[in-house]
């Protein structure tokens, strides 16, 4: 019984501290391209991130251009959003639906480089 009381008090204190120390405002990606977003927008401060990750001169890694399903080297598409090309539902004309495109691009690199967030809530941080 005593252990249970200690355990419950511990959980309560941790819970309250989680609520009190709320997170500072962070730049987020806009999830509105997903008609009914189910998670808070992912935290991502574009320029700061790309500088730290050494991507400042590799814009085309994310802003890529494809022609007939072939990646076009040396060209980039900063003027477009990912959702201009990646539809929501997968299909023959849409090999990589939007969620998978984002997760593949962001999460996979974080696994490969051993740095950066990989769990749902590290990117989709509670607001």
């Amino acid at each position, binding site marked *: 019984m005593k252990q249970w009381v200690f355990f419950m008090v511990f959980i309560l204190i*941790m*819970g309250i*501290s*989680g*609520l009190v120390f709320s997170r500072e405002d962070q730049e987020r990606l806009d999830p509105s391209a997903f008609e009914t977003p*189910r998670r808070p927008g992912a935290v991502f401060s574009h320029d700061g991130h790309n500088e730290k990750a050494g991507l400042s001169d590799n814009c085309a890694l994310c802003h890529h251009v494809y022609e007939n399903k072939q990646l076009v080297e040396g060209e980039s598409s900063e003027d477009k959003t990912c959702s201009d090309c990646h539809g929501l539902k*997968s299909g023959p004309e849409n090999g990589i639906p939007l*969620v*998978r495109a984002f*997760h*593949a691009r962001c*999460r996979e690199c*974080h*696994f490969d480089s*051993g*740095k*950066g967030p*990989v*769990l*749902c*809530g*590290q990117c989709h*941080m*509670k607001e």
Partner: protein
Amino acid sequence: MNAFIGFIMGPMVWISAMIFIFGLLIKFIFIIKEVREKEQYLLSYMTVRHSLRSICAWLIPFYPRSTRLRPVYYGVSYLFHILLFVLPVFLFSHIVLMDQSLNLSWPALHDGAADILTLAVILALVFFSLRRRLEPDVRFLTSVKDHLLILMVLLPFVTGFLAYHQVFLYEWMVIAHVLSGEFLLIIIPFSRFSHMITAPLTRAYTGSEFGHVRHAKDW
């Protein structure tokens, strides 16, 4: 840290799923083999019809008489077993992970609904644990191991709930969640939880003895 997370959310998921599936399969084969070698006569009066009849009767909520005699316990139990299967399989986060690794996806529960159902599972487990403490004849048959097994089921639900709400120690909560989920899958074939396959076998046997031999119902 990412390498560790990558391992427990990658290969380890498949390892534990394989132990779960093949563990149960091998257990099933061994049981049938044992019966064939040692208790051949059982098979002589087992029939498919009476086996299925009994299994189906016991799957219908409140159809068997003994379940009607204890409606609260069996009501909670039915609900719990359905949710135990439905929640992890149709949970949105789990499907997103599945889609990411296998390009496979299927309709998901609404997050808000899943959240409430998760609480229902947690309450059901607390109920089972209390019943084992408070009801004298069940208490007599209960050992520490039974409470530990309840805890093993409880952990993935509690940690999943706390992780989803990002209340505290988020990273550690997900790690605890994934590990406790995998641990649960791994111990199923080696523990009382293997009643997943042995319970239908018991029903088949009892149903056949009652139906085929005694011409009676076992529900």
